[in-house]
Every structure is written in structure tokens, then in C-alpha cells.
């Protein structure tokens, strides 16, 4: 996933000396070339994602929170590059034969940055916090759906009792939305904890200047890196300046000018430009979970008719749009799952652009007349589709993609109304069922995301008010497949069940897969050791150091 650096770092002593002279930097020159990490310094990170409204990822639970909280919070387990579960704050675990009882051993000798020791009771308090409706959790809450009881057996032993076997439990627990925080911090109440959550991570939140930046400082007592980290002990960086720069052109300009060291959410044209520029590196780490897709709201007309859903999908030319707008930086997807999910199943023939078929399907569905604007009409009603677009989450290329789909759909007689909204109005439109189409990427480790997105119960809102089944699929046969898949322990059986489930979602025309959830970071050449954590591909700056 990680592209090799294109240009080698400065190795010559003369060059290093020149750099020192130029930058007036006081840190010691790298003695043996770039291999020797340098301590200290401040790294400036510019995020193009929305600024979180709460820095505690238990609350709500979205990707902007995951990006920053990965620097100061840690989870019970992690993943390595091959998707294997790694111990983290839990050093060991086992499950009972019936899969209903899980016993975790909590890592010894770890303390939160407020001095509270990490023990089984602290983890129990975190699970209770996520499950408490007052926390308004959605992502973490849904991931813990089967955890019926959590109990601290002794200081180091935590026992989880499940209501049904959960083959995705460890994958769920690896996510930043279920990271472990100091129980003392949680007890301060939501406002204080949102402003500065307290974790065991390599950095701690020092200040949050809203609408501008978050200042993170090194945790000098840090002792709990995951097994795949490349060093031990405290982080190299002294501070991180985590800035919010929503405009992609200014973000890239700031990176070029050296005002910032790392940017996320690099746009396709920027990525292409950076590939031809000197002094920049690229880190490409697509997110796991769902692909970027349009969900077709089957819960209300006109998409309650499968023929209309198929007609829409056949009427739009996604291939050309992805090619033209993403300039080769994103692959077209034909699957409900991200391509980084090993169990992703694709079926391209269902999504072939076929305007004639679209017209025939609409005629068959009774949308035979057209009004003066060329839109189809049935019983005096226009064939209108509302598509609320979150301008915080949809990158400009994606918004342009929607405009292209709008134009294609118009030829078939659909009126697609694009509604650019800020994040809270967008959540509002979804909550009021005021949409026919929506793009709501969902990041979760493992194929169990399918259960969250397409099982009937996903139409019931989580405590935050968010529901994940935006396609409003209510199919008992699919529910059965997804529930069985989440309970079996045999990997082959699990794979087969998930394949059937994905086929059912695709053949029901509930979604129009577009492309993978992109996650491209651009960094200056002197930033070393940045990697994306293989769980949800959020960056971790623990191993990062500045070669200057």
C-alpha cells in the first residue's frame, strides 16, 4: 500500500550541512544518513477532513475523529499489514467453545497520561461508556452490538459475554472508535472529555483552538506501541500542530511552501501534480470497510421498485466519470466492500452503462410520459431523486462526479436534485428520510460492515440518531446470511456467506459502487517514518521523525 519514496533522502554530509545552514536548525545532523531517527521538533499536519465536534471518538464516531485520535488513544488490539490481529492494550485473549465468552488479558505497566493506571476495570468503564445511550455513540455502539456484559474479573482480566457469537469482535475492537480512555477522564463529563480526551497514546492533547488547530505534545512515559511499530519508548516528535485546512488547493500550496509537513485528503489533480514535483512523497492507504458508493433508498418511492433502481444504475456512466475526474488515482469499484477487504466480491456486469435498458425498465415500471423539461412523469409526479451531498465529506472530484451522474440520469428522464449541505444539515436530511440517493462511506475493519449497512436492524437509529442502512434494505434472506456470517468461526464458510450476501446486495440494485474510499497523504521529503495504521488507515505519527 505504501509507495516507496521516490527520491532518496539527503545522505551526503555536505548536503546535510547545507540543509542545516539553510534551515538554521539546531537538531544534530543525521550521522549515518537517514536511517538514524532524529529526536524532537514539531510536525505540522494539515487535515482536509471536517474538524471533529468532539475529540472523543466514542461520541458519534467518524473518520475525522479517527485521524486525530490515533495520535493520543489506543485500542485493545491492532492489525498488521496482512490483516492479522496484533496484541496492543490487550496482551492476550481467548474465546469459549460456544463463542459467547471472551477473556482478555490487559497489558501490564501502562498508564494513561493523567497517571491513572490501565487495568481491566478501566476497559470495562470504556465499554460501558460507549454503550451508554447518553454518550451518543454510533460507530462504536454498533460495533459492540453483541456485547451483552463486560466484567473486570481481576485487575488484569476482562470478560466479555456476548448475546451471539461474533466473528468480527477483534476486528471491531481494533478500531479507533473503541479506543480506551482514562476512566477519570471520562468521569469529567462529555464537554471536558470532548475537548481533551485522555489516553495511553504516544501524544496527548494539550490545546484545541477550535476552527483552527489542535496541539498535541509528546507523552514522555509512553510504553505501549503495537507490535508492528518500528521502535519502542516515547515518540520522536516533540509536538504536533494538527491544523484544519479545508480548501484542497491551499492545503497543497501550504505543503509546497513548507508551511505544513503532511496533508491528508489529497485531491486527484494534486496527487498527479505531486508525483511530478520534487521534494514530496505520497502515502496511499485506501480505507477498509465499504467502497464509496451511492445508496439507493429502497424504503420509499420511486426506488421501492427494483426496476427503477436498475434503470438509474444503467443510466449513468460511472466508468468515464471516474476516469476523467480521478486521473488514474482511483479504481472503479463494483463491490459493496473496499478493495482492501480480502472478502470483497465484485460483479461488474451488473453495472454496465446501458441507456437503452434504462429507458425500457422505466417504461415497464410505468414512468412512460415525459414533461416539457424531458423528465419522466407518472400520475402527475415527476421522477425526482434527491441527493444530499455533504460538502465536508465529498471531495470536489466526487461532487463533480455526482453532477456527471445527474446529467446522465437526465437523459433517461430522472431529475436528480443535488443538495450541497454542511455536515449537520446532511445528517438531518438522512434522519428525516429526505433523500433518494446518498453517498455515505462507512469505514469499519472487516466484512462485518455489511451487517451494519444492509441488515434490517440498521434502519433503526443508533443513540446518536444515525442509522447506517441508508439503502433501507429489509430482506429477511439477506439478514439471515449476514447474521450467520457474523457468527460462524470456519473461515471458508464465512467467506462463502459473505459472498452470497454481497451478491444479493448487488443484484438487488441497492447500491451503485463508485470507487474505493481514497486515503492519500502527501508529505515533504524530510518527513520520515510516517505510516498508516492498518486498522482503518489513519496515520500514526509515533514512528515519525523530521530529517532536518
Amino acid at each position, binding site marked *: 500500500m505504501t509507495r516507496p519514496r521516490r527520491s532518496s533522502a539527503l545522505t551526503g554530509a555536505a548536503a546535510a550541512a547545507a540543509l542545516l545552514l539553510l534551515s538554521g536548525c539546531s537538531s544534530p545532523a543525521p550521522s549515518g544518513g537517514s536511517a538514524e531517527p532524529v529526536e524532537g521538533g514539531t510536525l505540522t499536519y494539515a487535515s482536509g477532513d471536517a474538524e471533529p465536534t468532539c475529540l472523543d471518538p466514542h461520541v458519534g464516531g467518524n473518520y475525522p475523529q479517527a485521524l486525530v485520535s490515533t495520535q493520543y488513544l489506543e485500542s485493545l488490539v491492532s492489525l498488521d499489514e496482512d490483516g492479522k490481529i496484533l496484541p496492543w492494550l490487550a496482551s492476550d485473549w481467548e474465546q469459549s467453545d460456544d463463542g459467547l465468552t471472551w477473556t482478555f488479558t490487559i497489558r501490564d505497566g501502562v498508564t494513561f497520561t493523567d497517571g491513572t493506571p490501565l487495568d481491566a476495570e478501566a476497559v470495562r468503564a470504556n465499554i460501558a461508556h460507549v454503550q451508554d445511550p447518553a454518550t451518543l455513540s454510533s460507530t462504536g455502539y454498533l460495533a459492540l452490538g453483541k456485547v451483552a456484559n463486560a466484567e473486570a474479573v481481576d485487575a488484569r482480566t476482562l470478560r466479555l459475554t456476548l448475546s451471539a457469537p461474533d466473528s468480527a469482535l477483534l476486528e471491531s475492537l481494533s478500531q479507533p472508535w473503541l479506543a480506551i480512555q482514562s476512566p477519570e477522564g471520562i468521569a469529567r463529563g462529555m464537554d471536558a472529555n470532548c475537548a481533551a480526551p485522555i489516553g495511553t497514546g504516544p501524544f496527548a492533547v494539550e490545546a484545541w483552538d477550535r476552527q483552527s488547530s489542535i496541539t498535541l505534545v509528546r507523552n514522555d512515559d509512553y510504553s505501549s506501541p503495537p507490535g508492528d511499530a518500528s521502535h519502542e519508548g516515547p515518540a520522536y516528535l516533540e509536538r504536533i500542530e494538527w491544523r484544519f485546512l479545508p480548501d484542497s488547493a491551499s492545503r497543497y500550496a501550504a505543503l509546497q511552501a513548507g508551511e505544513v509537513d503532511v496533508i491528508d485528503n489529497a485531491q486527484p*489533480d494534486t496527487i498527479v*501534480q505531486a508525483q511530478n514535483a520534487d521534494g514530496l512523497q505520497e502515502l496511499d492507504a485506501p480505507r477498509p470497510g465499504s467502497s464509496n458508493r451511492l445508496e439507493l433508498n429502497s424504503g420509499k418511492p420511486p426506488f421501492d421498485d427494483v426496476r427503477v433502481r436498475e434503470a438509474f444504475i444503467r443510466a449513468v*456512466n460511472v466508468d468515464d*466519470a471516474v476516469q*476523467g475526474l480521478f486521473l488514474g488515482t482511483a479504481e472503479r469499484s463494483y463491490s459493496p466492500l473496499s478493495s482492501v477487504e480480502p472478502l470483497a466480491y465484485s460483479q461488474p456486469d451488473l453495472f454496465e452503462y446501458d441507456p437503452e435498458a434504462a429507458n425500457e425498465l422505466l417504461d415497464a415500471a410505468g414512468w412512460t410520459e415525459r414533461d416539457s423539461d424531458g423528465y419522466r412523469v407518472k400520475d402527475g409526479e415527476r421522477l425526482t431523486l434527491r441527493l444530499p451531498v455533504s460538502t465536508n465529506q465529498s471531495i*470536489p472530484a466526487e461532487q*463533480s462526479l*455526482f453532477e456527471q451522474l445527474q446529467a446522465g440520469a437526465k437523459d433517461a428522464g430522472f431529475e436528480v436534485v443535488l443538495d450541497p449541505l454542511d455536515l449537520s444539515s446532511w445528517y438531518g436530511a438522512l434522519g428525516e428520510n429526505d433523500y433518494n440517493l446518498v453517498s455515505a462511506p462507512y469505514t469499519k475493519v472487516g466484512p462485518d460492515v455489511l451487517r451494519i449497512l444492509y441488515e434490517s436492524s440498521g434502519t433503526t437509529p443508533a443513540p446518536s440518531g444515525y442509522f447506517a442502512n441508508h439503502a433501507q434494505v429489509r430482506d429477511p434472506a439477506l439478514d439471515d446470511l449476514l447474521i450467520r456470517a457474523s457468527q460462524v468461526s470456519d473461515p471458508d464458510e464465512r467467506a462463502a456467506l459473505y459472498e452470497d450476501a454481497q451478491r444479493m446486495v448487488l443484484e438487488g440494485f441497492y447500491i451503485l459502487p463508485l470507487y474505493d474510499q481514497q486515503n492519500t497523504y502527501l508529505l515533504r521529503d524530510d518527513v520520515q517514518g510516517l505510516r498508516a495504521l492498518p486498522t482503518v488507515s489513519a496515520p500514526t505519527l509515533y514512528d515519525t521523525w523530521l530529517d532536518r
Partner: protein
Amino acid sequence: MSDLEVSARLARSGVERRRARGGPGGGRAARRLPGAGESAAALVLLFLIASALVPQVVAPVDPLAISPLEAFRPPSAAHPFGTDESGRDIFSRVVHGTGPSLLLGIAATLIGLAGGVVLGTAAGMLGRVVDFGVNRLLEVLFAFPGLLLALFFIVIFGPGIVTATIAVGVSTAPGYARIIRGQLLTVRRSAYVEAATVLGRGRWRVLVRHILPNTLAPLFVLGTLGVGQAIVWAASLSYLGLGAVPPAAEWGAMLAAGRTYISTAWWLTFFPGLFIVLTATATTVLGRRLQQRVREQG
């Protein structure tokens, strides 16, 4: 605002100068022929009006027709202004965007003028108490930058081209009101109004026959100048995503969409920007010329 205030001062000083010369239509009224700048401005306006009225003749290509595989083409013979991120012809989009942009500018200016006339006349004619009230209200409104007022308005009534028009109109009204009030006060004290009053003409008659005509002539000039400004403001609102909604070809919205690609595809932003500048400049140049004519004719 500053533009309007300068114009107001000019308009007023014209009146004062006329008075100093002892009456209307005096002096050096040797009519000047239109200069190169004015001719160019007139040509630009003619082109804009043609684009607004018959866009399909000026640019036959459908401004909404996408062609994804021809995205980001630089200007060429086939696409004189290049293509945008969806392969749409930018020349065609700019031309088709003229109508909405001009209409928006003119409608917003009319709304602003209407509001200004009502407030200004009330302040200038209805006595001290009303004058005091209106003036304090205007001062409060002036405390906010005009664009901020427009933003308030849009936050309350929701984005869209109609609300954007009203928002720009409403937020320009205080400026016009103040100018009209000043103008009214000057005219009211002029010799001919005094004469009419002395001759026993009714209050309304004096207002309608003598005061308003002499107040509104400079106002027409201000309106012409205001259209350019209103277009710029409306484009700003669309740029912020608060005006036209996609896929409408509106200049501000085009600027906003192209901004992302400004370092790789300059033509996405350059041409809509050029048209905004040309429109604002052309209306201002002609507005000034009109102003001069009014002053010279008296």
C-alpha cells in the same frame, strides 16, 4: 460601499456646483464624444446583453452537456475557453451564465434602490423623529459589512438564486437610503423648491413634481454603478455555495468549482472571473459616463 459613496459625493457636488453657478444647465457643457474606454464598455455590454437574451445563438453548445473523457482540455479551436472537470464547454457555460448573473445583478439593484428610496424618502421628508429613527437604523446596518448582511439573510431563508438576489438587494439598500436622504435634503433647500412652497403648492405636489425628479436622476446613475457591484456580490455568494446550485452555469459557482484545479487548469477559473471583471468594469465605466451626462445636462 465606497464606490457608491464616492458617486454620491460626486452627484451631490454636481448639484452644488450647479447651484453655485446660479441654476441648472450652466457653463462648460460642451458635449464630449465617447472615448475609447466607453466604446469598449458599450461593446462588452452589447455582447453581454446578447449573451443574456439569446445565449443559444452566441454559444450553440449545450452548457450542461458532459463529456467526461474530454475533461480539463485547455483552450483550443474546438473549445475556445477550454473544458471543465466534467468536459463541459466553458465558453458556453460562461455565455449561458450571463443571463442569470445580469438578471441577478439588476434585480438585486432594483430591490436595493426601492428599499433605499422608501427609507431615504421617509427620513428626508417625514420630519425629525422619523429621520432620527431611520438614521440610527442605517447606522446599525452600516456597522455590518454588506456581504455579512447578505449572509445573515441566506442563513435564515436558505440558499438559492432567489434568496441570493433578495439578500444582495436588501444589503445594498442602506447605502442607497443614505444617499437619497442626503440628496433630498439638498434639493429640499434649493431655490426652486422654496419658490414652489412660497407659491403655495401642496406638500405632496412639491415632493412629486419638484423634489423626487431631481433626486432620482442621480439615482439612476448610482443604479448603473450598483449593478456591477451586485453582480460581484452575487458571484461571491455563489462562490461560497450560497447562491446558484449545481449544475447551473453561474459565474461564481464556476469559480468555486474551478478553484480546486487552479494550479493545474487555470482556464476553469480565469474565464468566469474575466467575465465578472468585464461586467463590473463595463457597467462602472458607462455609469460614470451617464453621471457626467446628467451633471452636464443638469
